[in-house]
């Protein structure tokens, strides 16, 4: 009986877990998207400073968000130095909105 109950709870948890976008359900990627939703655009160093992430890890996560179509990444030059500018896309805004809605649903339960 207990095993059945545990299985039901587990399956319910998995259903709720599946609702959260796996691309966004990661500490650093969620931090990046939450930062970009609040500003028009931000450069890589700004995001690195605010998230306290290492350049390598941030670079990997930014690429994952870019591949998912959630952010636009533009490489520019400023005073002969390379500059990476990130901006959230409409798809990123929708995904973030859905993620927050799913979180709200979870907390209401």
């Amino acid at each position, binding site marked *: 009986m207990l095993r059945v109950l545990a299985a039901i709870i587990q399956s319910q948890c998995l259903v709720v877990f599946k609702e959260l976008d796996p691309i966004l359900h990661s500490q650093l990627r969620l*931090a990046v998207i939450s*930062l970009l939703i*609040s500003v028009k*655009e*931000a*450069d890589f160093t700004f995001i690195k400073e605010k998230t306290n992430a290492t350049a390598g890890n941030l670079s990997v996560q930014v690429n994952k968000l870019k591949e998912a179509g959630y952010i636009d990444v533009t490489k520019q030059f400023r005073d002969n130095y390379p500059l990476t500018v990130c901006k959230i896309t409409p798809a990123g805004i929708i995904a973030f909105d859905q993620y927050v809605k799913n979180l709200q649903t979870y907390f209401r339960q």
Partner: protein
Amino acid sequence: MQEENISRQQSLAIIESMINKAKNQFSENGFAYLLWGWVILFCSVSQYVLQYVMHQPKHYLVWMLTWVAAIVQVIDATKRKKRKAVKTYTDEIIGYVWMTFVVMLLLCGILVGKVLEPGQFYVANIIILVLYGMPTLLSGVILKFRPLVTGGICCWILAVLASFVAPQFIILLIAAAVVAAWIIPGYLLRSRYRRENLAIQPQ
């Protein structure tokens, strides 16, 4: 931050923390308010002295100083744009508000200059007082900075007052308006900028 599984409580905490960090990105250092405040104060008081105390015929030439101020501001804005690591929606909206103000000021200057007779140019100063109130108040509302809101309202009160005083004193009301709307809020903005940017240094 590491790549790892997070709980929903942690997700919520991350979202809240990042939004707050972005919200505290206060980029208005008050430079433009102080620059234009002091330039307009100097020009208006000087014009009053040159025109009504020293009776100089070319008293209006003192306003050429505004061209120097415009050049200084363009240089400062270009430098700040280069240094800026983030563009916020607040900066963008405030930029449009001030651009609208400059266009309205130029259009009013041209149209009023065409319509008014030489003895009626003081009316232009009342219109300027009305116009000063709009971007000042809106910037205050957007930045949630009460001294600018108060400054904007002061401009409109002074515009109403201008209709009751002798035409030669209206230029001094402009001087009073820039002290209330730009110089005092400019210094307060500068101190808020220094305080908030010091408080959000990277940990």
